[in-house]
């Protein structure tokens, strides 16, 4: 077969680059701040070629000073700009924590002034990168009112949600799962599109059981669903996409249909996103439940470095299948 007519697939990381590029082109108030994002094109090459196209006033290189430049982004946003901050690894966002939770998150509540900014960074494990280059910080920020938190699980959503985030008038944390960067691809719409922040998406329909998940675990859930199908269990996969605020409706509708729910998340167990979704279902979807709400997640530990340890740490397809088995018994 000739590949000439085959539409081109776009990877998750390319989708992110495209979203940034298009928004920088569209809106002159959009600009970027981050370490090594200029000449070097960013640690993961997300902004390769950006400096040439947009110049050093739109692609601004930063010293190592996360608290300082996140604070700076807040100030610029208050003045009507739309800064996008790149943290080199999502792990380093911990160094700017105070500015995010105390200044950015609480500003609109106190003053009604908009803080339109996006902080984005590569998160998640699976790359043998150890405790300081593999964290999933979304759970921390999903506990901070005033912020929105996005973790896309597909190339399509990575692009559409990033564009939406840049146009949103609130401070947004956008965590890119770096395991997906070059591992997932799809054909994207040719015309421009944005996705709706705060809307989950049913990535696979099913009738027996619901898996609520997001990020890289969407792939794990889909693989598990596929395998479960062959043993006769029909699994629905709900991808939260936005982990704060959570799209209750889509989750509850799915559980109303299937009566069984598994929370699947790569973050550590206690107070990971799945804890919140479980609590929502246990309160608002209780009538529909035919069995316990099972959580499949990383254990409460730092992300270990050695491959066997990390494989044990990150939920695997088999772990999900075991949970499906357990729940199918109800």
């Amino acid at each position, binding site marked *: 077969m000739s590949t000439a007519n085959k539409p081109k697939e776009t990877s998750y990381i390319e989708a992110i680059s495209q979203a940034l590029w298009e928004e920088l082109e569209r809106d002159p108030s959009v600009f970027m701040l981050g370490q090594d994002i200029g000449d070097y094109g960013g640690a993961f090459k997300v902004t390769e070629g950006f400096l040439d196209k947009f110049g050093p*006033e739109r692609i601004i290189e930063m*010293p190592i000073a996360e608290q300082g430049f996140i604070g700076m*982004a*807040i100030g610029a946003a208050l003045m009507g700009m739309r800064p996008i901050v790149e943290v080199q690894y999502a792990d380093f966002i911990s160094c700017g924590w105070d500015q995010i939770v*105390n200044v950015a998150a609480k500003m*609109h509540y106190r003053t009604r002034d908009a803080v339109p900014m996006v902080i984005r960074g590569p998160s998640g494990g699976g790359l043998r990168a150890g405790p300081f280059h593999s964290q999933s910080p979304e759970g921390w920020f999903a506990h901070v009112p005033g912020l929105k938190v996005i973790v896309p699980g597909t190339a399509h959503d990575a692009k559409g949600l990033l564009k939406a985030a840049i146009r949103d008038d609130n401070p947004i944390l956008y965590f890119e799962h770096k395991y997906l960067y070059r591992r997932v691809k799809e054909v994207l719409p040719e015309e421009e599109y944005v996705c709706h922040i705060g809307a989950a998406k049913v990535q696979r329909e099913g009738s027996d059981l619901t898996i609520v998940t997001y990020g890289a675990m969407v792939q794990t859930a889909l693989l598990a669903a596929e395998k479960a199908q062959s043993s006769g269990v029909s699994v629905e996969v709900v991808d939260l996409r936005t982990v704060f605020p959570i799209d209750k409706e889509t989750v509850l509708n799915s559980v109303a249909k299937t009566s069984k729910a598994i929370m699947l998340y790569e973050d550590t167990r206690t107070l990971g996103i799945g804890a919140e979704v479980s609590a929502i279902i246990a309160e608002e979807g209780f009538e529909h439940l035919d069995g316990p709400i099972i959580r499949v997640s990383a254990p409460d530990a730092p992300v270990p470095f050695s491959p066997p340890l990390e494989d044990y740490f990150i939920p695997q397809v088999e772990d999900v299948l075991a949970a499906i088995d357990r729940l199918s018994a109800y």
Partner: protein
Amino acid sequence: MDVKPIEPGAKELQDMYYYMRLGRAIEERLELEYKGGKLTSAIYLGRGQEAIEVGASYALEPGDILAPTHRDMISQLPRGLTAREVFTNHYARANSLTRGKGEASYQGDLKRGLFATVSMLPDFYPVATGAALAFKLRGEKRVAMPLCGEGATSRGDFHESLNLASVLDLPVVFVVINNGFAYSTPPFKEMKLSDVAERAHAYAIPGVVVDGNNIIECYLEAKKAVERARDGGGPTLLEAKTMRMRGHAGHDAAKYISKELIREWAQKDPIDRFEKHLTNQGLLDETGIKDMTERVTQEVAEALKFAEESPYPEGQEAITDVYRQ
């Protein structure tokens, strides 16, 4: 733009005198209210700091940004903050600038170039630096001026923001109000230097020390730094030496400050000094002082009454405005 002159003329001097007097009058009233148990909130008085509060802020022009801290209510008056706003916010009323949501001393208004600070010190050093970045990126000739105390300069935000402003050549005037104490802590427990302004060297920017109780000096040096920044000359670190003439907050009797020290500084009261100066210049006399007392007293009384009569917000407002829709 009608930029204020470097050398203040009669109008400027009279304006500044009014703001100092108004600031003191508001604070005296707040103190009374606090002691009378009428306030649910803490108060952080800037008494004794009126010269730098007004002098620095008055050196700004309309489009500029001022980012005060908890103690700098007085600095906001020249930019249009009203006595009514101070009282409604302290009284946590629905019609206050924060609609009862923010803390008493943490208000602002972007339209007037006033950032509403947070408690974490000095978080608005980076934030104001970001405003200056926006100005530079858009080619606007505007300046940002964050304030903080000498105590706050020990925090990383001080270092990161001065360095960022220096590297990016941003129009920021960093003002440090060295009032001798950080809560109960004297400067020698916070740093080995006697002048915070010396830290400017670490960022290759000018560092200036002014007599924080001399409003003319405060205004002049601030104005120079502001116009230098506006002309693309980059940031300045301006330190004003003054004295916190009250406790850290309303509840603090400040027994850790000796009576002599307070007496000494009372001799240097910035309003007394400025009144003498204005009198010498023929710009003020006994009647003028009395008139001003009457004016600010009335303004404060009216504002307080207004605040007291203003309604509280409704409970369910607690959950509005978390996000911009």
